[in-house]
């Protein structure tokens, strides 16, 4: 679905972006065509693994069923999940992602440390679509 956005398993799981060889700007989701820095003459865009950990910029959830193209089973009750926007200090950007199952807004605070882990977005009989999720590390603000 979104080829090349992440790689690895377990502790080795990482989000993948690209970095401009000329100006060092980092892009996520990956930018493979042109560097978007208007001051940059343009350089080769090389794949780069993003920081595993970051801090919560903000968070929320969705109490009503998200519409298509989000995939959910209309036969089952909607189960809200938290969404976390995470600030990556090294890359100086914010990445939005789902929280791991079981983590609710009540468990979160702005500034809290989280780490990226693999998760399942949805699955059918043949395929499980994997994604990235954010999980609190237990470190405070």
């Amino acid at each position, binding site marked *: 679905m*979104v080829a090349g956005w992440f790689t690895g398993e377990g502790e080795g799981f990482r989000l993948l972006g690209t970095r401009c060889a000329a100006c060092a*700007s980092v892009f996520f989701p990956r930018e493979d065509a042109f560097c978007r820095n208007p001051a940059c003459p343009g350089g080769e865009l090389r794949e780069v693994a993003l920081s595993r950990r970051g801090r919560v910029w903000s968070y929320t959830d969705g109490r009503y069923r*998200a*519409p298509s193209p*989000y995939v959910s089973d209309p036969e089952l009750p909607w189960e809200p999940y938290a969404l976390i926007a995470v600030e990556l200090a090294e890359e100086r950007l914010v990445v939005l992602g789902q929280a791991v199952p079981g983590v609710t807004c009540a468990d979160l605070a702005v500034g809290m440390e989280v780490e990226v882990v693999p998760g399942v977005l949805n699955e059918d009989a043949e395929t499980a679509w994997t994604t990235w999720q954010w999980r609190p590390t237990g470190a405070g603000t």
Partner: protein
Amino acid sequence: MTGEVAVLGAGMHPWGKWGRSFVEYGTVAARAALADAGLDWRDVGSIVGADTVRGGYPGYVAGATFAKALGWQGARVTSVYAACASGAQAVGTARAQILAGLADVVLVVGADSAPKGFFRPAGGDRADDPDWLRFRVLGATNPTYFGLYARRRMAVHGDTREDFARVKVKNSAMGALNPHARYRKRVTAEEVAASAVVADPLRLLDICATSDGGAALVLSSMEFARRHGVAEPVRIRAVSTVTPRYPNTVLDLPDIATDSAVAVAPPDETFRASIARAAYEEAGVGPEDLSLAEVYDLSTALELQWYEDLGLCGEGEAAKLLRDGATAPGGRIPVNSSGGLASFGEAVPAQAIAQVCELVRQLRGEAGERQVAGARVALSANQGLFGHGSAVIAVR
């Protein structure tokens, strides 16, 4: 000022869920604006339609669709799409045509038939579309972004859910006085608190609904207005339609991530603040000159953000400005005297035009019970998807 254009007419179709075609809403609004201007449709030299992406093919070619409905008469035609800023870009296009001498009188129309529930992207698997991706990969609806902004304000500025509810209470009181608003009932803080959470910390009554509606303006050159016998029309003095500057470091609809600030320091002001500043510079006025403002209150919390982005108060001071009553009727700078999106809901291509309709009513002194006394300078501001944002400044 040489850069000004006259507003000769303003008209709307009431907001609601009427279940009819956007063409009908736009045509009703257009006829109302022409009647308000005292002009015949055949006097119009150019029509600019603000596009909707719903309603099928005709929605993408709104200018000609409205022209056909009004009766083909050979006018110059333009259609513009800029998400929530479509209406303001239509106004900007009309103004540019007038100032360039391409047309004396331009009709601007925006209308929409909104879907039920959340806005969602068009069908098909489109992994190259950021709007499609945020739904498919994250299930991130528009209200989830509003929730992120609201929670961030709570953490950084100490805003409370009660502050957010106060915005709804204020705007619903104004909407109750507006015959074109969809919701015409005053809402209490208790009712906001009792409504269901949509995207924590925001509740149903913190978030604007989707609605049907239409709005239209008749703009002309100052010379035409004089010849038409309107010596002192409401004038549009600025239309800013700026893009963000790299790196845009505030997570923005519909993006999954921000730009990186690793190579270039972030600009001193946010995108929303730059929208207002560009309009102030063009008009030669500042926030202290405003009599009133119409802002895109997609959520109650977002209205507070606009106070700061428009320079009505310092960063983090919006909740205090609200609590002090400065943005309420009779206050120093009433905001959303129309009732705002809280009372109208979103009819995407119409809403930015409807904002200008309210500025016009207020500046003419025709707003009835909503009237802001002695209104002289008014600003409207909105923000659409994909780096679109606009502000309009009108003066009397």
